[in-house]
């Protein structure tokens, strides 16, 4: 029950979904399985919320260092959850005004929208923006032209970075549109940073990306098969669980 049933469930589900690509009869089953998958994903968020609650409450009850922040997390969590689930400030759908719960939960002007617009969005955007500083600082410390490979990486990164900004125009905007030798062929303006950047993106990064994608696809396929055939059972955890 603890190991055989889950192995069976994953194998049956997986092979049915694989079968949807080959057997038309399975197509409807595949759609159902996808809908169930999305439902379970939604419940997984509830599980995540429950886990967060459990951890933060443990922190508060044990008065661990920084338990005040755990309280802040819980307050923010409950307030957002309440305004979202209770549709605070949401008007009914104008076509069905007598159904007070028929409005969109993320209606502009509602309390949940306020949390999304003025807390969630700026915080997530700023968190990611913060990485700009750390990436730059890490690159400054780590990038050294020690060998051929590192030098290539460095040069390409600089060309693409400059080529996609106004610096490209500022540094190489003056290159004339005249042929370097003879009539036709390569011109000086072909060496503008934005043009070089475009050539790198179109012709030189494509092979690398393709090879990486092919490698990932083969890796995903083999891992999936290992899971479905029960060779890889790591997702089941240990037998010691309660």
């Amino acid at each position, binding site marked *: 029950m603890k190991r055989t049933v889950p192995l069976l469930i994953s194998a049956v589900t997986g092979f049915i979904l694989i079968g949807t690509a080959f057997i038309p009869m399975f197509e409807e089953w595949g759609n159902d399985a996808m809908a169930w998958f999305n439902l379970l994903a939604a419940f997984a968020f509830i599980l995540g919320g429950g886990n967060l609650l459990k951890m933060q409450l443990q922190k508060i009850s044990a008065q661990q260092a920084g338990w005040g922040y755990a309280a802040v997390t819980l307050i923010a969590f409950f307030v957002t959850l309440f305004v979202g689930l209770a549709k605070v400030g949401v008007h009914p759908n104008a076509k069905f005004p007598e159904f007070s719960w028929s409005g969109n939960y993320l209606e502009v002007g509602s309390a949940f929208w306020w949390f999304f617009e003025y807390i969630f969005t700026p915080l997530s955007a700023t968190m990611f923006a913060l990485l700009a500083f750390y990436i730059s600082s890490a690159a400054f410390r780590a990038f050294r032209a020690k060998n051929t490979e590192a030098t290539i990486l460095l040069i*390409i990164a600089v060309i693409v970075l400059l080529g996609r900004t106004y610096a490209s125009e500022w540094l190489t905007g003056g290159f004339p549109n005249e042929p370097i030798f003879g009539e036709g062929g390569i011109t000086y303006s072909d060496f503008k940073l934005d043009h070089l950047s475009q050539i790198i993106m179109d012709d030189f990064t494509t092979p690398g990306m393709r090879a990486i994608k092919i490698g990932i*696809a083969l890796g995903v396929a083999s891992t999936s098969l290992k899971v*479905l055939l029960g060779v890889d059972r790591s997702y089941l955890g240990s037998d010691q669980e309660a």
Partner: protein
Amino acid sequence: MKQSTIIWTLLMVFGGLGLISVQLFRGKGEVYVREVPVEAKSSSKTSPEQTYRWSTYQEVSAKEKDDPGISFSYSRTLGLWVSAFCTLAIFSFLYGDNPLYKFTESVFVGVSAAYAMVVGFWTEIVTNLYAKLLPGMARMSFFPDMESDVQSDLLYLIPLVLSVLLLWRLAPKGNWIARWPLAFFIGATAGIRLISYLETDFIGQLQSTIMPFIVFTADGSLLWIKSLRNTVVIVGVTSCMVYFFFSVEHEGIVKYISRLGIWFLMITFGASFAYTVMGRIALLSARLDFLFNDWLGI
């Protein structure tokens, strides 16, 4: 307390107070809205017709604040200030870990978790579970526009049971039962990914790489730039694949081809790095634009 800490703290406090006073004095950092009245008639054909009235509010630029029908919005102005506070609090981490950052980080964790739960609840649980299992009740509450002849789909009891089993993981005993829905999850992911990755990333990429080395126009003249580009792509993909192939010793000709593959990969990583930096810088400039334009109005 270290001297540098005192200096930075004083700078931040006075800087913050200065910003607030400048804002209040100049009247910036305010949001104005236009009231849009909504009038809706009841949709029920059996009960007597009733009219419902409420207002929605559209944000307008500060230039229009003196126009008729425009009013100051307390909630959105507060939101603007909260946004600015959150942005500055996160940026304060650049100086070092501090209580302001930790406070905002905690708020972010709480709000994000609740946001994901609420979105999942309304878009999946209510729309795809409740409405499928109890269409009559769903029609009377959340979805009045649902067709009246929709029947319950009892097949959806299976995901309901699996979901309850998933939540069982939080229980102190018998939480191994959560492996069943997890197994469904893993099996479904493996099944979907296996086909989609093989189709788009394996066959698709190989198909795109199979192209002529030498390209001619309709009149038979050589398109040398197109030919060169095709050759670069074919040689690049092949050499990278050779580098990834570890079943043969990388010696002799294989060594040189795989070396070429590494160079192509380095070009890809360099460009990807540049793009990642650009993306983050774009986000940073958007945040600075918010602070300077939307909030400070400079």
